[in-house]
């Protein structure tokens, strides 16, 4: 079936603009997924819903040709695995394994190893379906995981983590190496799994934007905006124009702050500590400006259902404008220094390459995707207010190496500075928040926002009396972690921190 025909059968889905929903019968699930893959649709997320009373439902969200599509597979037979789509969309493999860990329904994928579940709960327990476990004080048993073994003359393993040497999040990396060359990397994640999806169901629907903001702290605006977009769509409420523009201002500031942090850290990982000192100084200036303009260094609860928590202070507009101009000017100088520094150039160029073909096959997304010629950006492809009136220049490179991911960050930083300048000049007058009705029991919706790392999705289902029945937040890191395993192949072990940093993926946003 063509994309056109699929969309014709679908119905509107509340939340993000252009979002459609379609229920697909069991026997046609893989066929529809195949049609979508042929039409170059991109998988955004895969998750399960349902509770102990109903059979679980599988959902998969895709984006194609200026529209989003949420497919739902009503499970008919609990005893039998549902058809997996990991061969068509490789990123689905880990999502399907996570569904098995949390909701107890298995796909046909032969890889039946747990993914998010370590030893904290039994395989028979379904955290999102069964009644909550009482918190226990006993230390969980030691976890064992079936890593793929690479064998051969001179092959040895290096096991790293979960506690890493730097100030970063925990995860485990298993390198199989010969000498210093990496033959294979296998990731083991799930260490920061803290039960976010269960926690959502314990919070009121009009307050859980606070939890959404803490799915991945560095993407607080993207997640809380996506959450609020879903709630507002379900409550059939339009936010005031000023609120939409303020949200875009927050989102672009979040992008600039993260890019500044990464550009400094990447210089440092290439042995150029000067870069870290300079960029971290600029980032600090930005955070202090944010403190003055919004009363917060990081905009954790700035986006809330109905609009924004606060308005920008009167002095905030000229002050932010001045700060961003200074930053942009200094970044231009620093970019020349990076470009002309032979040592930095040597480390960046050709390291951790993901070719455009591999990126397309594996579904590399967001910033890293755009560095490998995957020219997708929700701000242009599926724009919500105010991006409909705020055209974004898509930044795309095709080399797919660390240098390309650095270049995309530099270019996006300038583009965001340009957007912020425009937003500050065009902020519509009026209120920054509107009252919101509680969405009716059983309504569903989804928000979709291009965060600094890539597309962020929050799928939501309302329960009775302003409660949440199910909420699934989805970080683009799900798609890009598996690609990192490919990016490192053939590189040397000491380049891993640099290559890893050039992706800068979220552990918390992935582990939930």
């Amino acid at each position, binding site marked *: 079936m063509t994309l056109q025909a699929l969309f014709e059968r679908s119905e509107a889905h509340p939340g993000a603009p252009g979002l459609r929903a379609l229920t697909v019968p069991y026997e046609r699930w893989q066929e529809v997924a195949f049609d979508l893959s042929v039409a170059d649709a991109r998988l955004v997320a895969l998750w399960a819903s349902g509770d102990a009373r109903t059979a679980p439902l599988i959902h998969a969200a895709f984006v194609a040709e200026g529209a989003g599509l949420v497919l739902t597979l009503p499970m008919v037979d609990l005893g039998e695995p549902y058809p997996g789509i990991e061969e068509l969309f490789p990123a689905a493999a880990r999502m399907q394994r996570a569904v098995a860990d949390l909701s107890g329904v298995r796909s046909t994928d032969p890889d039946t190893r747990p993914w998010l579940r370590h030893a904290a709960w039994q395989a028979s327990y379904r955290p999102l379906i069964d009644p*909550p476990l009482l918190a226990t004080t006993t230390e*969980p048993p030691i976890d064992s995981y079936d890593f793929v073994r690479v064998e051969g003359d001179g092959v040895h393993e290096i096991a790293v983590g979960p*506690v890493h040497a730097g100030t970063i999040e925990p995860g485990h990396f298993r390198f199989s190496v010969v000498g210093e060359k990496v033959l294979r990397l296998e990731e083991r994640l799930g260490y*920061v799994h*803290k039960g976010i999806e*269960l926690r959502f169901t314990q919070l009121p629907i009009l307050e859980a934007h606070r939890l959404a903001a803490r*799915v*991945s702290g560095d993407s607080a605006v993207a997640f809380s905006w996506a959450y609020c977009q879903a709630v507002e769509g379900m409550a059939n409420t339009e936010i005031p124009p000023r609120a939409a523009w303020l949200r875009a201002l927050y989102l672009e500031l979040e992008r600039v702050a993260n890019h500044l942090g990464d550009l400094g850290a990447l210089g440092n990982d290439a042995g150029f500590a000067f870069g870290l000192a300079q960029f971290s100084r600029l980032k600090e200036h930005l955070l202090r400006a944010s403190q003055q303009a919004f009363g917060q260094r990081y905009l954790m609860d700035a986006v809330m259902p109905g609009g924004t928590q606060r308005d920008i202070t009167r002095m905030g507009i000229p002050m932010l404008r001045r700060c961003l101009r200074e930053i942009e000017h200094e970044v231009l*100088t620093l970019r020349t220094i990076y470009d002309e*520094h032979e040592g930095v150039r040597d480390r960046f160029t050709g390291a951790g390459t993901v070719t455009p073909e591999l990126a397309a096959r594996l579904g590399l997304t967001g910033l890293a995707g755009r560095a490998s010629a995957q020219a997708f950006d929700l701000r242009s492809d599926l724009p919500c207010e105010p991006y409909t009136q705020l055209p974004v220049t898509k930044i795309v490179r095709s080399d797919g190496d660390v240098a390309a991911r650095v270049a995309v960050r530099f270019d996006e930083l300038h583009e965001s500075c340009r957007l912020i300048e425009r937003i500050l000049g065009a902020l519509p007058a009026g209120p920054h928040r509107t009252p919101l009705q509680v969405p009716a029991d059983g309504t569903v919706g989804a928000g979709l926002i291009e965060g600094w790392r890539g597309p962020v999705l929050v799928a939501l289902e309302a329960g009775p009396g302003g409660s949440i029945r199910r909420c699934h937040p989805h970080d683009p890191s799900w798609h890009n972690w598996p690609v990192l395993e490919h990016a490192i192949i053939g590189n040397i072990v000491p380049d891993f921190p640099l290559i890893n940093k050039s992706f800068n993926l979220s552990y918390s946003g992935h582990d939930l």
Partner: protein
Amino acid sequence: MLKTLRQIASIGIVSEPPPQADESLRLRDGLQDEIRAVLGRALCIRHIDAGSCNGCELEIHALNNPLYNLEGLGIRFVASPRHADLLLVTGPVSKHMEVALRRTYDATPDPKLVVAIGDCGCTGGIFGETYASCGRVSNVIPVDVAVPGCPPSPTRILQGILAALARSVAPVTGAGEPP
């Protein structure tokens, strides 16, 4: 190279004087004298993310920027708990990090200090205690100082670290300091 030097010269030294220790953040006393006797002026910190959303990590990173200039105070982050005097722990402790956190604590030589960072480290925060979360850090290892905030600012984190040491630090001029 010339551009790099010009940039360094034009920015100059931007480090600010450190804040005073905030004694109210301290949960328990006793170790300070011993620690001070062992450490002299240097302190080595090992950071452990035990389940955080990564917000606190961003502010811990900021401690190393030239404005807060943590290393100028003789305080630095080290790569192994075996080199550390103080553990800086973020997050509610996830069940999956419980064993790793205990082992890291055990690997840290005595006398040692623990500073829990952020609302989650102090109380479990918005994540609370569930099948996958043990809640506050002190549910798993002993904590000396707890710094609330979501995330706490670098100044607050520094006040907490200094409170753990119960020492006041003279501002460092930067030039001519012994290594």
